[in-house]
Structures are given as C-alpha cells and as structure tokens.
C-alpha cells in the first residue's frame, strides 16, 4: 500500500472510531436523560413510573395553591379538569405562575397522584400555552364555565 493510501485509510479509520465513540456516548447519555411527558389522565391511570424523573402538565387548579407559613414549601394541584395531580414544591414559583394558568412541572412521582417537583415552568408570555398542556386540555373544559 502506498503511503498516501495508507494515510487516507488511517484518516477514515480514525474518523470511524471517533464517530463510533461519539455516537455511543451520545446514545448513552440521551437514554439516561430523557424526561417523558405525562398528562394528569395518564398519571391517574397509573401509566407513569414512580421515582423516575418525568414531566407533567396541565392547569393550576383554582384555589389549590397553599403556602406553608414557616418555610418556602408550597403545594398545588395540576389538573385537566377531570383528573388531579397534587404537586409539592419548595422554593420560588415563576412570575407567571397563577391559578387557572397552564404549567409544566418536572419531578418524580412519590406515590400515585403526588409529585415532588424540582422545577415548575410557566412561560414568558401570558397568551402562550405550552404545546403539551394545550394537547392535554383539548376537549376539556374548566368546570366553572360548564356550570
């Protein structure tokens, strides 16, 4: 094999090896860092895994936000107006967090219908609805407008 071909072969082999390592690492970290989204309905049916980081979303139920009087602990209910999910969180809620608004919470289910949230996301724009939440709410009406 002439030197030039040999060099080329080395380049190709090197590239292939690097690419393989990169793809391997990528898939590995991708598989361990994916957060699946679940609707309150799926969680109510028990489809979501316990003790694994997931995301859930829906509307903050009216009158459900309760602050602890000593610490920064807060509990609220995320609902699609048919199924409820209780959420516990410690810390500061985003500016646009309000009752009756769409939110996405990231955390682990401690038991059925009780989530320990590490992160609460409400969006920048008051007209904006997270796409997942919009899908969850499709065809479901807030009870107060039905009454």
């Amino acid at each position, binding site marked *: 094999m002439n030197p030039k071909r040999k*060099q080329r072969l080395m380049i190709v082999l090197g590239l292939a090896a*690097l690419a393989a390592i990169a793809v391997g690492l990528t898939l590995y*970290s991708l598989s361990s860092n994916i957060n699946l989204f679940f609707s309150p309905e799926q969680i109510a049916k028990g489809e979501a895994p316990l003790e694994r980081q997931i995301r859930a979303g829906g509307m903050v139920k009216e009158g459900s936000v309760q602050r602890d009087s000593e610490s920064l602990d807060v509990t609220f209910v995320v609902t699609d107006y048919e199924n409820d999910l209780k959420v516990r969180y410690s810390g500061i809620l985003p500016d646009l967090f309000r009752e009756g608004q769409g939110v996405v919470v990231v955390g682990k289910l401690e038991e059925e219908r009780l989530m320990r949230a590490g992160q609460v996301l409400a969006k*920048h724009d008051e007209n*904006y609805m997270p*796409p997942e939440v919009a899908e969850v709410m499709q065809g479901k009406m807030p009870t107060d407008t039905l009454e």
Partner: protein
Amino acid sequence: MLSKIIPELGHFALILALLMALFQALVPMAGTLTRRPLWMAFARPLAGGQFLFLAIAYLCLTASFLLDDFSVAYVANNSNSMLPWYYKTTAVWGSHEGSVLLWSLILGGWGFAVSQFSSQLPRDMVARVLSVMGMVCSGFLLFVLVTSNPFERLLPNMPQDGADLNPLLQDFGLVIHPPMLYMGYVGFSVVFAFAIAGLLGGRLDAAWTRWARPWTNVAWAFLTVGIALGSWWAYYELGWGGWWFWDPVENASLLPWLSGTALIHSLAVTEKRGSFRSWTVLLAIITFSLSLLGTFLVRSGVLTSVHAFANDPARGTFILVLLGLTVGLSLLVFALRAPRMSHSVGFNWLSRDALLLVNNILLVIMTVTVLLGTLYPLLLDALGLGKISVGPPYFNALFVPLTVLLCVFMGLGPLARWKQTSGRELFKRLAAAGVAALVIGMVAPLLYGGEWDLWVSLGLVTALWLVLSLARDLFDKLRNASSPGAGVKRLSLAYWGMVVGHLGLAVTIVGVTMVSNYNVERNIRLAPGESAEIAGYTFAMQELRERRGPNFIADTATIAVSRDGEHRFTMYPEKRFYLARGMPMTDVALRPGLLRDLYVAMGEDLGDGSWAMRVQFKPFVRWLWLGALLMAVGGVLAVVDRRYRRVKRRAEQARTADAAGLEGARA
C-alpha cells in the same frame, strides 16, 4: 395626513424590495451564464436599491410605533401609549413580524456591504455572490409578505390602546441582543453565497478564501457577542440567575456558532495550504443552513422553550420549505461541482494541518451532539412516539469532555508547524506549560474553596493549558527578535487575533468552571427587620415600599448588605406589575464584580408581610461574557490584518493591467 398612510408606504416599500431582490437573484446570474457584463453589472445597484427599500419599510414600521398607530395590528399587540419612546423603537423587533423584517433588513445590509467592499473581486464573482444573496433575501421577503406582514391593519375596529410590549423585553439587553444575533446568523449568508458562487464559477483558490475569510470572521464575532448578550440578558432578566439552560432556542444559536468556529479554522487551512477546500465549502453551507434551522426552530413555535411565544404553524411550514430548498439546492450544487475542485495536499500526522483537522472533527461532533439533543424530542413527537425533553445533564455529559479534548489540541495547534512538526520539539516547548497548568490547576481549588474538587481542577487545568501554551509561543516568538518591541511589531494582527480569541475561550472556561462549582444559591423568607447570611455576606431587609414607574407599579425592597459587621452597600430588588398586560416581572438587584456577583431577586409575597427572596453568590460569573467578548475581538483583529488590504492593492494593480490589455503578458 401623510402619517396615516405610513404603514401602506412601508408595505409598498417592502414589495419593491422583494422585486429588487428577485431581479438581483435572476439578472446577474443570467449575466454570468450568458457572459453579458451589462447584466452582471446590475448586481451592485440592485443590492443598494433592495437595502434602501428595506430600510424605508423598516423606518415606516418604527414610525408607526412612535406615532402609536394602533390600527396596525403588530403595533397594537406590542406597544402601548405609556411605553417609553426608546422601547417603542426597539419594540419593532419585540415579536415575530418585526423580527423577520429586521432579519431581512440585516440580510439586505450585508448584501449592500458586499456590493460596496468588493472592488477587488472579479465582476462575475460579484454577480454570482450577490445573486445568491438575492435568492435568500427573496425567500425571506416572500415569507414576510405572505405569512407575517407587520403592516397588517386592524380596521375598522382599532383598539384604543396597545397591549404593551412584553415586560421581559423592556430592557437594554433586548435592545442589542437580537440585532447582534441576527448580524451573526445572517452574516453567514455572505460566506454561504461566496461558497455557492465559488462552486458555480469553478474557483475556490487562495484568493477565494481571502475574500471569504473577513466576512466569515465578522459574522462569527457578531454571533459570539449576540450569544453572550443573550446569556447575560437571561441572567439578570429572568430572575433565576442562570446563564445557560441548554434551552432549544439557545442551542439553535450555538449550532451555527460551533460549525462557524470550525469554518473559520478550516478557512485558515484552505488559505495557507490550499487543502480542505471541499470541506470548507461544505462547512459554509452547513453553517448557514444551521442559521436557517435556528430561525425555523425559533420562529415556527415547534419548540417548548422558555423563549417560545405564541406562534402560527403556517409560518413554520414556510420556513421549513425555505430551509429544505436552500439545503437541497446548495448540496446539489456541491455534489455536482465540488469533486472538480478537490486538491489534495499531503501533511504529516503531527502538523498544524492535522491539529486543525482534529479541531474541525471535534467541533463537528459537538455540533452533532447539540443538534441531536435539540431535534430528538421534535423527531419523536413528529413520529407520535411520545413527548420527551432532553435535560441539561445530557448536554453537560457530552459537552464538557469534548471541550476539554478540544482544548488539549488547541494548546498544541498554535505551536505546531504547517505540514510537519517534530514531536520532540513540541514536547520540549510545551512540557513546562503542561506541568505548570497541571500543578496550579490541581492546587487552586484547595486555595480557593478549601477542598479539592475534580471538576474545578479539570476546568482550571484546561484553561491554564491554553493560556500557558500561548504564553510560551509568544515568548519564543519575542525571544528570537532583536528587541521585544521589534518582536511585537513583527507579529501579524492575525496572530494577535488568534491569541486573543483563544485567551477568550480560556477566560470563559474559568468563568463556567467557577460559577458552576462555587455558586451559592438560597431561597429564603425575609420580612422587614430580618436578615440572612449567604457566603459571608449578611443581607438585611430594611424596608418594603411601593413605587410607581411609567407603565408599572413595583414593590421595592431595601436590602442592606454587610460583611464582617461592616455595612457595604444597599440593593433594591423589585417585583414589578406591568399594568397594560397585567403581568408581574422580577427586577433583579445585582452587585457585579470581577471576582463575584451578588444577586438578589424578589420571589413572591407570602402574605404575612414577608417575601420569598432568591439570594445568590456567583463567583467569576462575569468571566463568561468577558471571555466571549475577547473571542469576538480576536475574530475582528484577525480580519483587519494587513494581508487582506494588500490583496486589494494587488487586485487594483491587476485591474490596471487588465485595462492596459496586458492580460496575456501577465499570464
């Protein structure tokens, strides 16, 4: 009376600009195909005209904002009569329609700049470059006019007052972040146009790289500053104290930056050694495609992101088609023409060529990992396989080791010679730098934090390795000169650009390392008269009061900060309530410093007179953005290098020679 038809004038100017762009796309290109100099000569005036009419349209929209013309839907949705005038002018790009108009204006501006600063370029090259830019601009102007016309009227039921600009955007950071970012994004259209023109014209020689390089560097510098500004803005405006979230929209700007970084390095090899030609051209195409992809991701509303605002899916489809056409056509041209341009130059395994090749490979891998993490959730969603999100751990797990690896080679690159370099010599010159970096980097966390930390050491060793190897190179270069002054004079500005740019990365790495590992964040309850201690500082809330701003009311806290019992300064965080939108906003109180920032944000009223407060101690956080600025300065320094001006003079000589009919003699 005239003021009433300003939006129509703007709309009309926009249509004229589109016509100009279409002519610019077609006529000069037809001229190069039929070899008609007159047709080719249309390129420059058309680029000027297109920019002029875009500027008129843009000014008309600005005027509508300043005149509070709420019959224009876009103004009504994004402005308010109470909004201060300076935010009215910047509200023009506060939402979708205006952003795309600004995008097009900047594209027209780059085209105009090319038409003005291309005197050294052959006529057919100018014609091809401007024609390609005309095509891109036609696409975007069609997009504006068809799907996102900012001059749309709300008649006859016009609102009394506007809905106001999103309060998050009423800020100095927003005034400059989007224009800078767009300058970068759109700036890559120039090197893209050069790449396509080079492929079509069959000339991708050293001269081609010398034309394309300055444009690429400037665009890259703008993008660097734009990303840094975005990070800075998020840091002080969102009230979380985060500076990078691996949010899809941030990734969208990082992607062209990474491939653009690969591009400026690969251009260097092509210019100096004539190799990597096809690769450079491919990178140019990829980089601009990633810019378009970023635009698509941000503007289509397909993303769940902190940046996501209400959007219309029809627009997404349009940009997707535009993206598909651009990528498809340019890759087709590449596939048809690139094989003819290939030109192989041999080099040894240990040489600057090889190290830059490694740099390119690593940067491309980084681009691919970020792209994968960003698009994977979209892909799964489109296939109906569930909604997922990819969290920061994924990106950190891949990005950190790749960056460290990249930096290892970055330390070697500048000291290696082109074509071939002796490993022994390289080792001899760099051994001391390597050992020093290792020792200092290992000990530093002990001195700063009191205990050893693997990640801090890793970051510091990496940064020190970059700095010390550069210092060694500089030392060697100056030592061989008769006097240090003469040595400095002999070094080219391009070299200084490299030094400053690489130094910038080291500074950023120090910032990232320190703030990620030594950040102290506490969420506390605080009522007037109470205090809390964080990282040696005591934060005492003295007073809570209400304050009225031009278009908001605010709860303001007075926080006295002391250290070792001694009063240092007072901070005033605010929670604002913007009246028009009924939207609350956190206004952070910051005490910036070179070595640490103190950060106080008001969370929420807890009802019993106390507030939830977010107090943070952020060491070295400024270094993040300082480093990015240095990188941008480096990029620009490399452009003002003498050799790009010398080319101009040489080209002028060549032209006079042409005129004298000496073409044959010269050849």
